[in-house]
């Protein structure tokens, strides 16, 4: 690259600028430095002035005014922004407004006054400073009211009665005297034997402690005491005594034991436990330490004795006495076991006998095999030999009624379950009689057995009523109600032939009355509605019996039309109101018509042609009918 400086044009003349003189427009003009030609200006920070730099071959240079100020600022001066200022910090020179002052220790006394050792500077009579040279040994400065001067010191003060460490006290008028009973040595204030401290001592230092019998108290004299706690501390073998009217009341001995000379009156023991050392100090019985004989309130035991049914063994009072309370072996006199909060259990092989102490033996119902029931109520009359299960409940179902439960499981372990088998006996209710020898001979029983194959939720059963025949020792079956609910009677059924008025005995069944019926009215079963309607023999009657529809029953009670009621199928019925007076033993027929508005049996044979004659019983007495309809029917011709 080739460069050529910029060419602006031909020079037509040279003119002297600022600080120069000379110039011209032709020939060879010259310019001369002429400082006088410079334009006047005010020098300011940031300006430059020309210099001849002798360090650089006397070259022409410019120099900042600020640099000149820095160059000129010597010790005690500082240049800043071209200005030179006197330092005013305490390391050099201080100024205070229009006065000059010297920093602390900025000039020594020797530089100011050139005083000799021990001299002092005073003002003299010319109100100028003057030197007062050091005085004689032990001399003191005195003043005569105008000037001061050295003078011999007055003689020292002598305290009467003072010894080493004696404390001075004021005596008389502005006089001091040594107090022989008070001394202070180091940090110990000692009160002499004959001195009293009245009325109280108050310590208010950080420790708040009063030391008795110890020479050097420390802040840590009681470990664990909180800072600020007030502490009275007896140290070493020194006791702490509290007296009342010069009589010892409380002693804290060197072992820390506290002894009360008199009673502890009032207050409440707030501790959770209190321990009494067995034997105490010189005591051999608890009562020597704590007297409770007259104490009648609070939780304490004065004398321990056995109550009813409880046997007390050992001493009843005293300290460290072995004592045992146990339920009486004879268990006599116990009136109540209280309210149990858990099952009352009696161990296996033991029972509960109410009324006496000895269990009675019966049999399992065969009159031979002994059985000792675990729960027995024994007495001499109904009042002391009966048991009662009573429920007081508003529930009218089984859930509200008492239950005697007999249960039999097929497993040999209590609480374990195995299904029982067909024919297995589930329970027995047996009545025994004393045969003069024992109570093992049964008289009658109700036996419960499985009747069929049982399974889960399936338990067919039967009830067997048994009695013991005369001359025998075991019950035999008399009546059975099986799982099909059929009743089997081993022998005959005997009905009451003289029932009370009005009542009945015999075989009954429940039917619905087709019309309102009263006890004793005879009826037939109408095919149209399967209800019982009054039966008559007269051919014109609405309840006419026929060979196909005959009289089958007698209303055993008053039954309203449409209601279900009991009907006597066979048996005795007495009704002194509804029946006419029959001739005893006469044959009774279906009536031709109602008698006294009642369709009761009639003692006269129907006589109207076409009537069907049906014998339905006979009169057991004047108002008692044995109803036993004969289904042989005769038509009256």
């Amino acid at each position: 690259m080739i460069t050529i400086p910029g060419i602006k044009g031909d020079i037509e003349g040279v003119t002297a600028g600022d600080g120069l003189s000379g110039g011209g427009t032709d020939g060879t003009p010259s310019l001369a430095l002429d400082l006088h030609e410079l334009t006047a200006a005010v020098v300011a920070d940031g300006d430059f002035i020309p210099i001849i730099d002798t360090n650089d071959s006397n070259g022409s240079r410019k120099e900042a005014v600020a640099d000149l100020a820095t160059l000129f600022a010597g010790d005690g001066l500082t240049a800043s922004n071209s200005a030179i200022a006197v330092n005013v910090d305490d390391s050099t020179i201080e100024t205070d407004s229009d006065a000059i002052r010297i920093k602390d220790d900025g000039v020594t006394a020797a530089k100011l006054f050139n005083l000799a050792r021990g001299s002092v500077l005073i003002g003299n009579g010319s109100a100028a400073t003057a030197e007062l040279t050091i005085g004689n040994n032990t001399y003191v400065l005195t003043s005569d009211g105008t000037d001061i001067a050295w003078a011999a010191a007055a003689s020292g003060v002598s305290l009467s009665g003072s010894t080493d460490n004696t404390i001075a006290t004021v005596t008389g008028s502005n006089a001091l005297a040594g107090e022989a009973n008070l001394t202070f040595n180091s940090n110990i204030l000692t009160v002499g034997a004959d001195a009293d401290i009245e009325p109280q001592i108050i310590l208010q230092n950080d420790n708040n402690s009063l030391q008795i019998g110890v020479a050097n108290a420390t802040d840590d004299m009681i470990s664990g005491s909180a800072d600020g706690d007030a502490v009275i501390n007896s140290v070493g073998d020194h006791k702490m005594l509290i007296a009342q009217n010069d009589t010892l009341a409380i002693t804290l001995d060197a072992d820390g034991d506290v002894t009360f000379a008199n009673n502890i009156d009032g207050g409440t023991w707030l501790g959770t436990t209190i321990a009494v050392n067995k034997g105490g100090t010189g005591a051999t019985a608890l009562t020597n330490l704590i007297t409770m004989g007259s104490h009648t309130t609070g939780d304490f035991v004065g004398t321990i004795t056995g109550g009813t049914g409880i046997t007390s063994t050992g001493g009843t009072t005293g300290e460290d006495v072995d004592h045992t309370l146990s339920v009486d072996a004879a268990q006599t006199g116990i009136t109540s076991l209280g309210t149990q909060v858990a099952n009352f259990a009696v161990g296996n092989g033991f029972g509960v006998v109410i009324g006496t102490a000895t269990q009675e033996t019966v049999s399992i119902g065969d009159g031979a095999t002994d059985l000792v029931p675990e729960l027995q109520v024994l007495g001499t009359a109904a009042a002391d030999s009966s048991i009662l299960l009573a429920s007081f409940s508003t529930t009218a179902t089984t859930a509200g009624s008492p239950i005697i439960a007999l249960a039999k499981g097929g497993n040999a372990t209590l609480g374990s379950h195995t299904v029982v088998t067909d024919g297995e006996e589930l329970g027995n209710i047996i009545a025994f009689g004393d045969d003069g020898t024992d109570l093992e001979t049964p008289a009658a029983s109700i036996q419960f057995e499985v009747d069929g194959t049982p399974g889960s939720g399936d338990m067919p059963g039967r009830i067997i009523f048994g009695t013991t025949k005369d001359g025998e020792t075991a019950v035999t079956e008399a009546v059975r109600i099986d799982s099909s609910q059929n009743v089997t009677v081993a022998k005959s059924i005997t009905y009451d032939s003289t029932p009370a008025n009005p009542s009945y005995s015999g075989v009954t069944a429940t039917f619905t009355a087709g019309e309102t019926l009263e006890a004793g009215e005879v009826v037939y079963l109408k095919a149209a509605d399967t209800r019982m309607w009054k039966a008559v023999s007269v051919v014109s009657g609405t309840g006419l019996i026929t060979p196909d529809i005959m009289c089958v029953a007698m209303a055993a009670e008053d039954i309203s039309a449409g209601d279900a009621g009991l009907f006597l199928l066979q048996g005795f019925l007495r009704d002194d109101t509804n029946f006419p007076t029959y001739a005893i033993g006469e044959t009774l027929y279906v009536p031709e018509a109602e008698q006294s508005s009642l369709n009761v049996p009639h003692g006269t044979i129907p006589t109207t042609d076409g009537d069907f004659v049906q014998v339905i019983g006979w009169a057991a007495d004047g108002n008692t009918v044995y109803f036993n309809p004969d289904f042989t029917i005769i038509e009256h011709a």
Partner: protein
Amino acid sequence: MSRQPQALDYTSGTISNSAVNIFEMGSALVTSAPTGARSFVGTIELAAVRARGDGTAPTTSEGQLIGNGGIIYLGESEFNSMEFFREDSTDAELRGHFYNVEVDVLIGKVAS
């Protein structure tokens, strides 16, 4: 018979605070060498610049100083290699022509 200089093209552009050759100037009118151009002659305006042709970029303080109004001559081989950088805070302008003859023809005999 010697050749006669003929201006082939004209260019101008801004030299700022980054190193540029004559084709890289700001708003350069010509961004590649015109066909047949053998030299470039231009004038620096507005402010001084610095120039380096050794492959190292010039800066405000390093490089050949060319004052405001200075004239530069570039041979064909310097079109891309000669870089310019403004000398202070003021951008400069370079304006000139590309010629069909070498520099020595333009300026006559150049001293060795």
